[in-house]
């Protein structure tokens, strides 16, 4: 990461989401993504941060640090938290033909983002989620 990355650290609570989304949308537009894709990226990051608030910290106090920057041909967004460590195996999207509230967030993230991974951290120090989107693939779905 270098100085062109934008950072925003906010309490892990619902009323932080609007500012987190705004940063993603603004940076996506600045990096040349179309408005519709910038909205999708803001939604994906919203869902990732919501997961941290609801399932990571589980209502306990904590912080979310969002960093957004350019990568070759696209944009990377990182979400750092100090909540209970999780892995991609913990991501269970619901079956879409099953009509029930909830479980949609993971599906949105996977549909919108091109690459999603937890980056390694020292044990028990939280999570660092990396999500990438490329300019030559601004649609959704794989």
């Amino acid at each position, binding site marked *: 990461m270098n100085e062109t990355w934008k950072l925003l650290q906010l309490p892990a609570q*619902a*009323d932080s*989401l*609007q500012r987190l*989304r705004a940063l993603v949308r603004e940076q996506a537009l600045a990096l040349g993504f179309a408005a*519709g894709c910038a*909205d*999708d990226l*803001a*939604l994906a990051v*919203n*869902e990732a941060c*919501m997961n941290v*608030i*609801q399932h990571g910290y589980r209502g306990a106090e904590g912080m979310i640090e969002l960093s957004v920057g350019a990568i070759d041909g696209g944009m990377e967004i990182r979400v750092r938290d100090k909540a209970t460590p999780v892995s991609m195996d913990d991501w269970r999207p619901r079956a*879409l033909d099953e*009509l*029930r*509230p*909830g479980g*949609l*967030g993971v*599906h*949105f993230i996977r*549909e*919108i983002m091109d690459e999603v991974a937890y980056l390694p951290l020292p044990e028990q120090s939280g999570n660092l989620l990396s999500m990438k989107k490329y300019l030559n693939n601004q649609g*959704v779905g794989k």
Partner: protein
Amino acid sequence: MSADVRMQAEYAIVSLAGEIDLHSSPEARKLILTCLQDNRPTLVDLGDVAYIDSSGVASLVEGFQLARQRQLDFGLVRVSAAVLNVLKLARLDKVFPLYPSVEERIKNAG
């Protein structure tokens, strides 16, 4: 988000506007479920919604399910492009009844 409920014929019309996210969706959910618990057929006007996330969509799904349970009419009207995009992403655009306007639905209902 701003929210408003009004009656038109026997219908409750829940009009939502602005951004529906984890912060505001509990209020939207409560308004929708209260109308249905009062046994009102309910339409949710989403024409002025600029953003909705999975918690907002979950509130609409809960409304849809409660309406089905109680055999009450339920639908979404004036769905904005932003909301439709998210419903499509959730593959729910063919699940919810969508109407161009409140009048259109009431005129053709029953």
